[in-house]
């Protein structure tokens, strides 16, 4: 499905991964997707800014929501420890891979989409189909996030007093204006 993503939509997903990594999470959840959208240009970022969603605050609220849900920001240490217990030194693999392929090519554990984030991506596709759009842009991603409705991303929006129904209207307006 990513082959149908616009450059901005891809950038938002990469931004979500970067947010996850920098926060010490080994997964990409709906909260990280929201952060990726908030920091990227395009209809989603514009709509979020119009509703006064500020990146720094959204980041704090995402970290807090995950912490409250009992999800630790471990930077993947448990997975590394588990491998150490069977004699595999991930730090050594990292060192050799960095030497051979360049820094950052090998990444362990590479963050993966949570089930809710995967659902969000499926709903994103559905939003694009419903609008008759071939390309998937940031606006569709935000619509998908809102449609999923139950993840950390939407929880953060509620905490920031965002009217999600109104946000949906705003992003739809911006998308049709653009088209």
């Amino acid at each position: 499905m990513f082959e149908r993503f616009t450059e901005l939509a891809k950038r938002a997903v990469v931004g979500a991964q970067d947010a996850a990594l920098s926060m010490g999470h080994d997964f990409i959840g709906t909260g990280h997707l929201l952060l990726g959208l908030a920091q990227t240009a395009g209809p989603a970022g514009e709509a979020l800014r119009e509703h006064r969603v500020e990146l720094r605050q959204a980041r704090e609220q995402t970290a807090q929501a995950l912490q409250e849900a009992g999800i630790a920001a471990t930077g993947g240490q448990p997975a590394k420890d588990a491998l150490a217990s069977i004699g595999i030194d991930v730090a050594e693999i990292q060192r050799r891979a960095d030497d051979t392929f360049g820094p950052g090519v090998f990444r362990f554990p590479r963050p993966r989409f949570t089930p809710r984030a995967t659902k969000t991506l499926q709903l994103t596709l559905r939003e694009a189909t419903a609008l008759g759009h071939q390309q998937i842009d940031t606006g569709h991603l935000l619509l998908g996030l809102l449609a999923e409705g139950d993840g950390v991303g939407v929880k953060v929006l509620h905490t920031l007093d965002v009217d999600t129904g109104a946000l949906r209207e705003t992003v739809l307006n911006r998308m049709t204006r653009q088209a």
Partner: protein
Amino acid sequence: MSAEPLPADLVGQITNKDPALGLQAVVALRRLLEELERVHVDNARDQGWTWQNIATALQVSRQSVHEKHATRRKTTGKED
């Protein structure tokens, strides 16, 4: 760097009776395998290997290796 565990220690760890520990290691290992495959497939493609050559080396079908990696490489701009 941590000291290399003695073979006896290692055997003890691998055969630890706690299923939670053993299963956690299996999951982490699977994830490490995925990452290593990704790194080495990218390296092979960058060095001009065909999908068929990569599939043969990995002992899987060309179709499965292509499905798994070609779209990802296109999406991340590593390949046209």
